[in-house]
């Protein structure tokens, strides 16, 4: 029994026991369901072992939506606790755990996979490629992300959740102050998912640099692909910093080193610096692909080519460079002195310039356009004013002298939610509506979509605008309650209403998916939006090889030109196509990594060593395996093309 005591939750509550039961019931239901409907084989062949970028993209997006609801549940609990002064719904410890997991889940396990999911689905199609450069590595990336996410998510029912904030600052995160295994989960789960993300970065950089269709020079790439390219450069250069920081944190917690301790020569500020050297570029990893989505959506529905293509690219490059030299603005108050603060203040405010260029480019794209107000377009239109509110308050926070007033107040919380939700979440929802017909062959209902968009936009304002006020009045973030005399009660009650509106908005999206699945027409063709880029040039459903023959590119919007001028996009004759085989290795490695991480969290060394050997065994197997892929014959391609309505 002693062995199992370590898995107990240090701080239980009825809600956690209820969650345990719910998790068990759902898991059993899934297993029983799969067995009853005899879907195990289908699941294994078509999804678990797939190396197809389209399917991996869809799996990323499904995982992201699941995590959105996990993080959203955390958010509702927090807002409920704060909705009235001296509320007793959650105690301080639970509140700490919930704001920690909310942050990690939303940034790393919701926003990241959402973005990487769309990159997976869209980028190879936009550049006219058959798959990514390393399809199997791509599958491994997904399963590492998924293993990390699942490991992090079980923390609250096995051993206790991390409770030191999503930034996990030392010395708070050290053993002395964070006694449960929670912070071990943080260090190791993020490490595993981070390895997957790094592999994605390498994979997509290679893909975009080397696998573009003939004629597509860098300056003829669609804007989303540009944003993906720059994002992946940031990933490759930022994530190793996180790897090292997490490894040092793990050593501190499990091997008794003193990197971030305040004794024996350690330096707690080193963690803060390393964390944000990764953490700030991470913000741009999230927002740049979102900008890419907006560029595609706005240009499609304004029926105009994107205004200022070159300045769009240049501004993204400048943002990516600046993103590495602003990290100190996350801790202006933590003792750097006026000189250092001033430098980072200036670099921070400088980011507003290229971002402003992008905003004006979108506005000028709309100017004299024939605007079609679809759901994705509505999200994009709501994004511009709301994001600007968030961005301008960011410049306020960037002024280091003034930051002493805003630091660690609800003002900051309001700011970053006002950039992340309109910036990233609206973009992902726009992309979900925009790419849904390409993914699943039917459109989501536009009327329900628009109602949802308005509810979410107004909900965002109602939830977060009051925080600007209570923050300026001095309400600290990460405090589980406040006194009635502070007068924060009314603002937090308004926020609660906004949070419920957001929940209703997301529920409406789920209902819309159900409704459209039941009622939407299926004969929508392959280009229902009358769009401009290559992903719409192939059939729906997309054949596994994407394009029967390679498109020939001569302008930035060749597909649009071919529709307007009637030129041929696909002049070549069909040849046999080389495709990679499915593989179970990435999935198996994901499972082993999960067990490896779990053993590591609880410092169970023998299972840890066994899992490590298992990982290396998989790598060796992979090295020795003689898998040259397979060919799809010309007859097969011709038949598929005929079924889908003729070769393009």
């Amino acid at each position, binding site marked *: 029994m002693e062995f199992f005591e370590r898995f107990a939750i240090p701080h239980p509550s009825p809600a956690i026991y209820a969650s345990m039961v719910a998790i068990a019931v759902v898991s059993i239901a899934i297993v029983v369901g799969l067995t009853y409907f005899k879907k195990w084989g289908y699941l294994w062949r078509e999804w678990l072992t797939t190396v197809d970028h389209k399917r991996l993209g869809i799996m990323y997006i499904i995982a992201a939506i699941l995590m959105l609801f996990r993080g959203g549940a955390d958010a509702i609990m927090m807002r409920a606790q704060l909705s009235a002064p001296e509320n007793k719904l959650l105690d301080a410890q639970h509140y700490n755990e919930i704001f920690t997991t909310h942050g990690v889940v939303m940034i790393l396990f919701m926003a990241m996979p959402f973005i990487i999911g769309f990159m997976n689905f869209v980028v190879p199609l936009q550049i006219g490629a058959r798959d990514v450069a390393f399809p199997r590595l791509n599958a491994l990336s997904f399963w590492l992300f998924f293993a990390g996410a699942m490991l992090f998510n079980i923390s609250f029912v096995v051993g206790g959740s991390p409770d030191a904030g999503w930034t996990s600052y030392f010395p708070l995160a050290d053993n002395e102050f964070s006694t449960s295994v929670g912070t071990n989960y943080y260090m190791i789960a993020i490490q595993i998912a981070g390895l997957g993300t790094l592999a994605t970065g*390498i994979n997509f950089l290679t893909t975009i640099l080397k696998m573009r269709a003939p004629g597509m020079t860098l300056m003829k790439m669609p804007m989303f692909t540009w944003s993906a390219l720059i994002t992946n450069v940031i990933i*490759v250069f930022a994530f190793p910093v996180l790897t090292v920081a997490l490894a040092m944190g793990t050593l501190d917690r499990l091997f008794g080193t003193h990197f971030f301790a305040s004794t*024996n*020569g*350690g*330096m707690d500020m*080193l963690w803060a610096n*390393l964390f944000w050297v990764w953490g700030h570029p991470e913000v741009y990893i999230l927002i740049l692909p979102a900008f890419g989505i907006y560029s595609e959506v706005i240009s499609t529905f304004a029926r105009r080519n994107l205004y200022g293509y070159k300045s769009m690219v240049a501004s993204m490059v400048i943002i990516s460079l600046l993103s590495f030299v602003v990290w100190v603005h996350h801790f202006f108050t933590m003792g750097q002195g006026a000189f250092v603060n001033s430098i980072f203040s200036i670099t921070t405010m400088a980011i507003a310039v290229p971002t402003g260029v992008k905003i004006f480019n979108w506005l000028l794209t709309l100017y004299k356009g024939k605007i079609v107000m679809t759901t994705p377009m509505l999200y994009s239109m709501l994004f511009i004013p709301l994001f600007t509110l968030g961005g301008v308050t960011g410049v306020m926070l960037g002024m280091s002298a003034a930051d002493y007033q805003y630091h660690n107040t609800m003002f900051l919380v309001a700011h970053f939610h006002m950039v992340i939700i309109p910036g990233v979440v609206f973009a992902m929802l726009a992309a979900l509506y925009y790419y849904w017909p390409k993914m699943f062959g039917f459109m989501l209902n536009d009327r329900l979509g628009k109602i949802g968009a308005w509810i979410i936009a107004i909900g965002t304002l109602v939830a977060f605008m009051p925080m600007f006020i209570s923050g300026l009045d001095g309400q600290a973030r990460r405090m589980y309650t406040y006194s009635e005399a502070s007068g924060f009660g009314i603002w937090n009650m308004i926020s609660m209403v906004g949070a419920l509106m957001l929940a209703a908005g997301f529920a409406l999206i789920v209902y819309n998916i159900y409704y459209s699945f039941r009622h939407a027409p299926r004969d929508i063709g392959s280009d229902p939006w009358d769009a401009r880029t290559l992903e719409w040039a192939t059939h729906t459903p997309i054949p596994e090889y994407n394009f029967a023959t390679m498109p020939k590119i001569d302008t930035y919007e060749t597909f649009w030109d071919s529709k307007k001028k009637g030129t041929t996009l696909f002049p070549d004759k069909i040849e046999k196509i080389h495709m990679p085989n499915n593989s179970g290795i990435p999935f198996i490695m994901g499972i082993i990594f999960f067990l490896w991480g779990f053993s590591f969290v609880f410092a169970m060394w023998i299972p840890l060593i066994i899992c490590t050997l298992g990982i290396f065994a998989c790598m060796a197997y992979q*090295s020795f395996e003689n898998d040259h892929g397979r060919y799809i014959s010309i007859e097969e391609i011709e038949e598929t093309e005929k079924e889908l309505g003729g070769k393009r």
Partner: protein
Amino acid sequence: MKIDHSLPLEYSTDENRLKILGFWIFLGAEVMLFATLFASYFILSGGTGDGPSGAEIFEITPVLIETLVLLTSSFTIGLMVHAMRLGRQKAMMGFFIATIVLGAIFLGVEIYEFVHYVHVGAGLQTSAFSAILLTTLGTHGAHVTFGLFWGICILIQVKKYGLTPRTTNKSFIFSLYWHFLDVVWIFIFSFVYLKGMM
């Protein structure tokens, strides 16, 4: 698989070219990894607490042996690629084996060095300095160790299949990795040992 005969075997197919570029990008990430470790080392190198400082524990002899052995192994892996391009499989394998042997010697000396550090009271838990020293050296050492096993896997495949586009590609990528570890070692030699001993 289309093979372009105007290029060396390791570059001859599309897949091979992708893998080489991908590996260069991976090395870019590795540069960031070691850069972070070096930055942390510079910041924590004064944080000796109650433990010894670098000048008190560094020994020049094992470090010189390690440096000599690793630099030589980088030379032999260069010769390996040269022999591979000439299509001389035996010579190629010979240089490959020489590289792995030299790598193993390096690792042996490094293990001796670690034992020495722990022996003179600079263990992982002694101070922030000793921890970052052992972590930086250890990360490089772990890369070398991984390289030895990886190299042996490739060597077996070269023996089994001969010099094919696939095996030459793997060998070439391994050589990139090995040179990279050498570059990292030069930084360790200069900025950890020499700087620490001055």
